[in-house]
């Protein structure tokens, strides 16, 4: 397993990039810990796959260096980087048995057969194909094949890193739960360095110790799931993490007071804001309470989604979403209140701190 250093990496697909906008990946400069589980999360076109391909060696970055445990691997091929990869669609040998598919990466490296057998049996149980060891892969369903791909990614214990590119996209929801928790358990057990690309927030948050949120070719935040949820650094993170995402409301800030429309909201700190910045207040739907006290709100729609309700409303002429418990009720003249601790203030889309 290896620590991964990304040093001033930038990448442009076209030759001779002139401006910042020509870069599909803007400057990335980070150290990723040995044994860490990182998820790269963002919408399509955000640069997450470009970054993964730079780590795997499929792409040579236009600028910068990449180091595994201090060793410069920028110009090494994928094979020479000693990594395992799992792709979105199954990559397996149809004519081989399930067992031989899993054994392949080990035999390729002349691992002794007894060790091969031990590892393959362990992995085959983990992916739930215990009874299928001797079956040819060609007769299997798409998700069984993808499980073999996953198993092949996990079967070697001596790789520098395991890279996953949207590995669960083709898997049915129920199986996703099983596989996800197994990958996580394996990570705890063996401490692989893992990098996992996904556009699915649940997968990213549940898989990773650190989630790398990307937007428009940049890393906008690297944080624990809790940090991304409670303190999004950028309004994009607030929007992208959470269903529904954070409510971001235009607000005027004076000292430790925010004003939205004609409503004033006391803050528990004094945001430091540069003159002329566009200021907004961010509050997650989970931290807006609905009742008889507080600020008036007009309900437009209530969506009962089983374990809770999503209330869509208008507040100070802005749309706002509120999460209400499964058994929660809405009074006749509803009012809302914000949990003061959960309020974030943004200036030109970036979160601002300040004195308490």
């Amino acid at each position, binding site marked *: 397993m290896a620590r991964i250093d990304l040093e001033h990496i930038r990448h442009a697909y076209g030759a001779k990039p002139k401006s910042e906008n020509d870069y599909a990946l803007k400057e990335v400069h980070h150290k990723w810990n040995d044994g860490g589980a990182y998820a790269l999360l963002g919408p399509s076109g955000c640069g997450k796959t470009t970054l993964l391909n730079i780590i795997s060696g499929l792409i040579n970055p236009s600028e910068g260096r990449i180091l595994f445990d201090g060793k410069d691997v920028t110009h090494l091929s994928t094979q020479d980087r000693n990594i395992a990869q799992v792709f979105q669609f199954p990559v397996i040998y149809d004519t081989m048995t399930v067992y031989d598919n899993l054994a392949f990466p080990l035999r390729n490296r002349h691992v002794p057969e007894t060790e091969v057998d031990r590892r393959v049996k362990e992995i085959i149980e983990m992916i739930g194909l215990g009874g299928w060891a001797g079956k040819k892969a060609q007769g299997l369903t*798409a998700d069984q094949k993808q499980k073999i791909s996953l198993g092949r990614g996990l079967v070697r214990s001596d790789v520098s890193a395991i890279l996953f590119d949207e590995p669960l996209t083709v898997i049915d929801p129920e199986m996703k739960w099983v596989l996800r*928790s197994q990958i996580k358990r394996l990570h705890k057990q063996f401490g692989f360095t893992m990098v996992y690309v996904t556009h699915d927030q649940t997968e990213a948050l549940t898989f990773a110790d650190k989630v790398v949120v990307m937007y428009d070719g940049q890393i906008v935040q690297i944080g624990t799931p809790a940090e991304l949820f409670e303190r999004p650094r950028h309004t994009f993170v607030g929007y992208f993490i959470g269903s*529904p995402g954070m409510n971001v409301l235009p607000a005027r800030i004076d000292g430790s007071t925010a004003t939205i429309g004609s409503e004033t909201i006391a803050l528990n700190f004094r945001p430091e804001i540069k003159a002329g910045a566009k200021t907004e207040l961010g509050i997650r739907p989970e931290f807006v309470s609905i009742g008889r006290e507080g600020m008036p709100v007009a309900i437009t729609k209530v969506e009962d989604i089983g374990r809770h309700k999503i209330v869509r409303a208008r507040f100070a002429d802005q749309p706002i979403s509120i999460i209400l418990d499964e058994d929660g009720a809405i009074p006749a003249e509803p009012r809302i209140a914000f949990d003061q601790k959960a309020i974030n203030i943004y200036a030109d889309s970036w979160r601002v701190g300040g004195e308490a």
Partner: protein
Amino acid sequence: MLEMKKISKVVGGETHILPTDLVLERGSLNVLLGPTLSGKTSLMRLMAGLDKPASGSLIFDGTDVTGLPVQKRSVAMVYQQFINYPSMTVYDNIASPMRIKGSDAATIDREVRKAAELLKLTPYLDRTPLSLSGGQQQRTALARAIVKNADLVLLDEPLANLDYKLREELREELPKLFAASGAIFVYATTEPSEALLLGGNTATLSQGRITQFGKTIDVFRRPVDLVTARTFADPPLNTIELIKSGSIFTFDGKHVLSVPAHLSALPDGPCTVAFQPHHLSFDRPFDGATPLTVKTAISEIAGSESFIHVGFSGARWVMLAPGIHDIEPDATLEVFVDIRHLMVFGPDGRAIGGTA
């Protein structure tokens, strides 16, 4: 109104759809929910007239249309893969069904612009589909389905290839589009959460059979059998085989859960007890609730909440707990089942003993 009467589909001696009765009203949104290969696409193809049923009949507004080819029906379909005419502009793509129908230029222009506005495509009308993002391409296909003004609109996992944030937005838009048109909408998905967010009606499918059809939230809350309950659960449904004996449920002769009031009429004997992950909690749900001792397998943090996988007497459960709980594997925990929301299924898998 679309009526399917004992419709079945057999391919090469293999039954893909068992004889099915289903009535869909005009102006309704109907979700087909089930895992891969459960028969969603087969059922849609039968509704569209793309395939001939092996038996049964299809009645549309009182007219038997069984065997009538798709070209002669008023049907629009949108698939998981974005299908557009690559050489035409977005405008021409959306306009194409109206041109085929021979509508006049002014009507075409009005309808195309209206659909483009609804689907936020106005800025892209002069572009070709391949220069657009996946979300925009799929919105183009949806806009084309809308202007076609068909009586039956079939959407086969239309959002599956999109980022979840885009899906979230389109999912909110789609029911509004549907409601306005008065057509019958059928929407296939593998994801329970998508069905809940869409609302309307849901038919759950398992192995070529509709297991239940009704208002989405009712099917979710009151599944008629265990198969339906499992199909409609994400995270997976928690279950355990217990013996009901008087006022308690036992396992190995030991008290596990009390029988809640809504199940007082339940007969004694073996049964499957089931509950949703958010009905397992660290907090006592009501006075007098007795805790269960469970062992953790893994905990996953999803921002505002945690999924804690636990084991109890051989059963594997998921607990959805608000807040952040990073619990090490093999820890012993005390948790509560909110028995007020228990579902019980008999040895034949049918729901018994009333519902919460």
